[in-house]
């Protein structure tokens, strides 16, 4: 029997030490958690607010003017939901506007025109270097100095901007809508039938005359048919249905001044506008930098090659540079979107009731600080997870054809 003389004692064995280290670490974390838990329990006992979620069924007791209809007698749970929807509303709209603005300024920063390039650079520097909160407060303060309701700034008497916010027309379905939807369904069905017949006919009639390799496949026949036959068929049915259904299926409702307020249409409150403009402008400055970086990262030879083949500048940009820049742009763009969503919590500074502000309103009357913070945390984590999952999927989807 040979004993290994170099075998270290167990307290110097790496495997043992690893386990020991982790156990000690977990014990430390557990001790800390226990400490917090004990403090929390004694603190809650002193305050007289045992943890429970039953407050969600109680009356909220405050009004929310933005978003879904809500009044003070609705429950806290509904209030929280209205808050979530408000956050989503401002975030989604903000992401959309910031992306458009950001792309415009990002491309403008690389313009061959000196003036355009400089304007874009100044825009980016100004709005990136001033704190977002300050910008939101500034825009909100500006909405305070908009004209009174009777003297609204208006575009073609359809859009109105005044101290109460921005009024814009909305689309509403009429009685004829359901009839028209039936027409649409009928259009889809008939288009599918027509295309299938066409493809089958073409497939059979051509098959005898041509070589095996030249014969268009069934799938390509379908694509051809969809483009040239199904789409016109569907459009014809849809347009005919529009006139055949009783009355117009949709109606545009223009806001109208009645007495001291506008009736009809959508109203974006000054709080919403201040927050939206602030978030949009601030994030667009960052997106512009992301876009510029992405475009500059595309190898110069690609651009030169595209020019050499005789593409115009616009074509070079749209069909050569940007498609290659997108995969580089998407990951940082995602984090900008997430930042925008998180930054929408600054709503609390100007009184817009987003999810955090709503929850914060509930904290004092209910005393349920901890569950409410838990709910906020879960909401934001879900939002960021969904965004990352979607953007990762999109990124995979567009990079699939790469190189």
């Amino acid at each position, binding site marked *: 029997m040979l004993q290994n003389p170099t075998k270290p004692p167990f307290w110097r064995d790496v495997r043992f030490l690893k386990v020991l280290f982790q156990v000690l670490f977990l014990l430390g974390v557990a001790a800390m958690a226990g400490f917090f838990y004990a*403090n929390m329990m004694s603190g809650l006992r002193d305050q007289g607010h045992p943890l429970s979620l039953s407050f969600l069924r109680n009356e909220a007791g405050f009004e929310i003017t933005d978003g879904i209809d809500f009044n003070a007698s609705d429950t806290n749970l509904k209030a929280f939901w209205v808050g979530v929807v408000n956050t989503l509303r401002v975030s989604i709209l903000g992401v959309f506007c910031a992306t458009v603005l950001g792309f415009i300024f990002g491309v403008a920063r690389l313009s061959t025109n000196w003036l355009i390039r400089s*304007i874009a650079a100044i825009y980016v520097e100004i709005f990136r270097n*001033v704190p977002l909160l*300050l910008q939101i407060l500034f825009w909100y303060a500006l909405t305070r100095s908009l004209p009174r309701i009777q003297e609204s700034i208006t575009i073609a008497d359809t859009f109105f901007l005044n101290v109460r916010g921005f009024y814009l027309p909305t689309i509403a379905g009429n009685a004829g809508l359901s009839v028209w939807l039936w027409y649409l369904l009928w259009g889809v069905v008939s288009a599918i039938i027509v295309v299938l017949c066409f493809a089958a006919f073409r497939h059979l009639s051509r098959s005898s005359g041509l070589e095996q390799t030249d014969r268009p496949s069934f799938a390509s026949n379908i694509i051809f048919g969809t483009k040239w036959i199904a789409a016109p068929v569907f459009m014809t049915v849809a347009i005919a249905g529009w006139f055949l259904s009783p009355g117009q299926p949709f109606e545009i409702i223009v806001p109208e001044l009645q007495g001291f307020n506008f009736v009809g249409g959508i109203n974006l409150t000054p709080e919403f506008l201040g927050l939206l403009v602030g978030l949009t402008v601030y994030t667009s400055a960052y997106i512009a930098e992301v876009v510029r970086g992405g475009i500059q990262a595309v190898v110069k030879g690609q651009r030169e090659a595209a020019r050499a083949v005789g593409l115009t500048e616009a074509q070079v940009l749209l069909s050569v540079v940007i498609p290659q820049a997108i995969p580089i742009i998407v990951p940082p763009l995602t984090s900008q979107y997430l930042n925008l969503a998180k930054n929408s919590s600054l709503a609390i500074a100007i009184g817009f009731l987003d999810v*955090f502000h709503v929850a914060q309103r509930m904290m004092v009357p209910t005393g349920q600080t901890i569950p409410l913070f838990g709910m906020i945390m879960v909401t934001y984590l879900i939002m960021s997870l969904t965004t990352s999952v979607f953007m990762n999927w999109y990124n995979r989807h567009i990079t699939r054809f790469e190189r």
Partner: protein
Amino acid sequence: MEELTFTPEIKPPSTKKDPKRWLKDNLFSNWYNTLLTLLAIVLLYFLFKGVYTWVFTQAKWEVIPPNLRKLSVGKFPKDQLWRVGQVIYVLAVLMGLSAGIWKGLNQQITSAVACVGAVIALLPIQVNTSLREAAIIATTLIAVSYVLGRDLQNLKRWVIIGWVLMFPWMMFMLHGFGENSISTILWGGLLLTLILAVVGIVACFPIGILLALGRRSQLPAIRWISIAYIEVVRGMPLVTILFMGSLMLPIFMPGDFRPDKVIRAMIVLTLFSAAYMAENVRGGLQAVPRGQYEAAQAVGLAYPQTMTFIVLPQALRSVIPTIVGQFIALFKDTSLVSIIALTEVLGTADEILGDPKWTGYQPELYVFIAVIYFIFTFAMSHVSQIVEAELGVGKH
């Protein structure tokens, strides 16, 4: 045989800067650029006209001078202002010496600061005498110590020690001790903004490094807890975490632990930026080649030694620009503490606007503060670009 003919030498086209040529190349190279230029000129005309009329005729700037002290130091007791002065002067001396000794980047930063000092000293508007005085003294100190620093190369080590001691000394100086100590609640204005940002970035450093190492650790328990901390903190907005600090810290801490709101904000900012710092440092750790780890192991270094002497120095060096970027972000984010009723610059502005005498002065005050922020952040991002170029990050 054919005779070789040489083409006569032709001079290369002149690259001389010709204004007419420049205009054609940069503004009117083709029809749509011309159109864009004209549109931009029209737009700029209206923009400038609007801004000009507002700034010089409509804006009521009288709100700024009487509140300048409040905006810069908040409610810091007037008779204790010399403490702030001391900090600024020592900072000025250190900056001047560094500029003189190391030249290069230090010189640029210092001269920028000196310019700001000179501008404040020469401001044509009515500022209170102590501010003007401080600016004059600080600028002179910078100039003098710069001249001295050029000849005193052997002071190098002492200057570095000075910089290291600067932070604790600053805190000590501003807070004071014993009977004369100044409660942190009285800190305010730009002073508080700067303190919060500096404390946040300095204090988060060790935690951030530990979290980054934890996230890359091979021990699952440590790795998962680090990941959970980093991702949860990064997934939440700072405002919510600040509110948590002010509403939940008292619940989770024993009854006798009641730090004031400034300290609470410092704790929150530190814990918050630690998560972001961890991600930055992780980026640096990933950039260190594998061979470095292996070489360190081969020479027989243990994990702590490998990290402290081999890996971290290289990792941290490569993330300096990112950390400057994070500092800029944190500097801007400190404005959020005004929501939990702290009086940093923006909070002070809100306080001033709450005074019936100054209601309706929002745009003027906000624009003024925006300019202050802009100067700081723009300067810092400029510096980080230079640092990046000097370190050659991304070059190799």
